[in-house]
């Protein structure tokens, strides 16, 4: 008694989730680049592509619901489907954060940069590295590594503190307030993306061990 068809569908939803993650990772990378390189076309592209990401998320969600309704999944099959259902929501929300950054890139494009972009791209780099690593732990069913990834969120939080402090100082000059506020939003979006990676890691631990653990209580 094997379940070839069901196994194939289970693999499919996970592969599609990884595809969704790749789209999201691209969105994050391009959104920050559109800001630092003041690339309006790229920013618009990120905003348009967000619709595609949303659609993909709903497609995967429907497949998961169909599997629950038709296959009565249990044990690790059930945990896999439930994990996918949660993870695609986090992925989709990460893309929304990227879209938010792209919108700010559009708003700031006509003005000179307020500060050199060093820490913001650094935050994006760490968040993306965490995202990719989290999905690898899901593929490898590696709960120990999923837990370890969450530690990196502290690095992102620390950079957020730093950027925030610098921007507040720049606000002393009235002319900077609007741009500085927008940039705090960029940093905030990146900080949230890293937080959502820790949610993915929690789902990996649940998938592998059947335990629901809160892995990272973020400062924010």
């Amino acid at each position, binding site marked *: 008694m094997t379940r070839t068809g069901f196994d194939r569908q289970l693999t499919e939803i996970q592969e599609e989730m990884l595809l969704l993650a790749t789209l999201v990772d691209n969105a994050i990378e391009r959104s920050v680049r559109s800001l630092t390189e003041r690339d309006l076309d790229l920013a618009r592209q990120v905003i348009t592509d967000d619709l595609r990401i949303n659609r993909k998320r709903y497609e995967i969600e429907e497949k998961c619901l169909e599997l629950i309704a038709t296959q009565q999944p249990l*044990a690790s099959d059930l945990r896999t489907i439930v994990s996918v259902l949660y993870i695609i929501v986090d992925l989709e929300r990460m893309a929304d954060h990227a879209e938010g950054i792209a919108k700010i890139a559009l708003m700031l494009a006509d003005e000179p940069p307020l500060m050199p972009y060093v820490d913001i791209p650094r935050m994006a780099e760490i968040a993306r590295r965490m995202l990719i690593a989290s999905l*690898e732990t899901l593929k490898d069913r590696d709960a120990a590594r999923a837990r370890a990834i969450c530690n990196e969120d502290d690095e992102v939080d620390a950079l957020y503190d730093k950027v925030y402090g610098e921007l507040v100082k720049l606000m002393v000059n009235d002319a900077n307030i609007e741009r500085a506020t927008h940039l705090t939003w960029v940093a905030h979006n990146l900080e949230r993306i890293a937080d959502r990676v820790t949610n993915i890691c929690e789902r990996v631990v649940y998938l592998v061990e059947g335990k629901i653990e809160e892995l990272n209580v973020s400062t924010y």
Partner: protein
Amino acid sequence: MVTSPLQYAAVPATARIDDVDATDAQQDVAMELRAVHAWYGHFRALKGVTLPVPKRRITAIIGPSGCGKSTLIRCLNRMNDLIPGFRIEGDVLFEGRNIYERGVDAVEVRRRIGMVFQKPNPFPKSNYDNVAFGARINGYDGKLNEIVERALRQAALWDEVHDKLHKSALALSGWQQQRLCIARALAVEPEVILMDEPCSALDPVATLKIEDLMRELAREYSIVIVTHNMQQAARVADYTAVMMMAEDRAGELIEYGPTSHIFTNPKEKRTEDYITGRFG
């Protein structure tokens, strides 16, 4: 996927919201099997089964065909005594006493530990006489009408048969017959009810109704159900025991625990393979 060059060190979890290992250890037991082995002639049917039957809870026994589920449930009220060549070792404790001990009255055991079978098996008698049957042979006097009504109400059948109590039970539908058999078991006031595939001859709607009835009955009775329908065990049982055939084909218990644990996060690989349909 892109591979990450990062190496991570394992760290302990920071917080645990839900400890899924928490079990209901303080549960009162109605019955308890301790290292039970059983044979039919030379064939060993059960190997070392140790299992509690919690009071006023539903315990499901699941497992593939031939794994000893029915043998096990029939050990719980000495129903196997009637099979030539049957032999049992170990303890089947009911109120602290082994029901296989010398001097224990098997008929009394079966009164207090009742059974409902796979196919509804009413006697070719009236509805009333079916329910009153056990009470009559157990020597109840006087209040037979009350006993019959109470049992039929508990089995959720009273409203359908109160005006045809003296009509033949064979005229009832399948699921009415099954409830009549449940009423017949209840009429002798048992403490434990054993159900061996009680829904396998019923349609899905009747099955759900019997399951509702089981939940009602579990307020007062301890119930053990054998089922090959895993979804039924998942829906109805508080605790689930998983049995498998060992290499010598004897049935053994491989896992027991709260139903939600068994179906979401079983500890044993064989349980996982069986309940996810990847067994064999």
